[in-house]
């Protein structure tokens, strides 16, 4: 049964994506880390669907795919705006609100 190692792999991938998101300041790498975390979630859904023999896991995978496509198209537009206005791809450059 491959479901348990698949879930462990999903946890490892999610952790790697989280580490990348928190440690990198280049906004392009932060987006790549988000993609890795979305993929880890998709893997967990597929593993769960395979474990119980239900179709819901793959249905949720389709929705994650849709979400990733919409998120990437908007986020890459923001990256282009950032590089165009601030001449950098450093996420820390967006500190005008002093939040």
């Amino acid at each position, binding site marked *: 049964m491959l479901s348990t190692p698949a879930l462990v792999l999903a946890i490892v991938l999610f952790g790697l994506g989280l580490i990348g998101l928190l440690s990198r300041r280049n906004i392009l790498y932060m987006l*790549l880390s988000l993609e890795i975390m979305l993929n880890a979630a998709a893997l967990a859904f597929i*593993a769960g669907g395979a474990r119980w023999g239900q179709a819901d896991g793959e*249905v949720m995978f389709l929705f994650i795919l849709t979400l990733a496509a919409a998120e990437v*198209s908007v986020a*890459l*537009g923001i990256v282009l705006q950032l590089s165009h206005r601030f001449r950098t*791809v450093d996420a820390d450059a967006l500190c005008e609100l002093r939040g």
Partner: protein
Amino acid sequence: MEILFYIAATVTVLATLRVITHVHPVHALLYLVVALIALAFIFYLLGAQFAAALEIIIYGGAIMVLFIFVVMLLGPLAAEQEKSWLTPGAWIGPSILALVLLGEVGYLIAVGDHPVTIVAETQQKAVSIALYGPYIIAVELASMLLLPGLIGAYHLGRRISREDR
């Protein structure tokens, strides 16, 4: 067959590690494509063939092409580095990982026995019936998500070209 899963999982983790530690965006994208293909192989081993195909076509194809377009559009920030980006050495790491995956696929084809028998195979028909049956509201919500995505991407991209004129 489980050894195939562990090899593909190792390839995935190694490629992902190289993604988050790499300096050059194009190299990181190459490794991410390899990680996505390895993940698609794992989906296939788990019995989700359609999800594996979608993972390669949409993630490895469409979304990665978007990322590559943006990396190339970042132009002035990266113009000096572009010559060093695609040196022959850059292809060695992803090529080795991809060759491992190719070996696994070749082994599967040579054996001829579909490995999906290790887990219960989720039927594509059941997925389609569930998608357009109980999940029909979520499908409508997904279409409502994609339209703002399209408009948002158009709006964010349009203002750059207008300011350039």
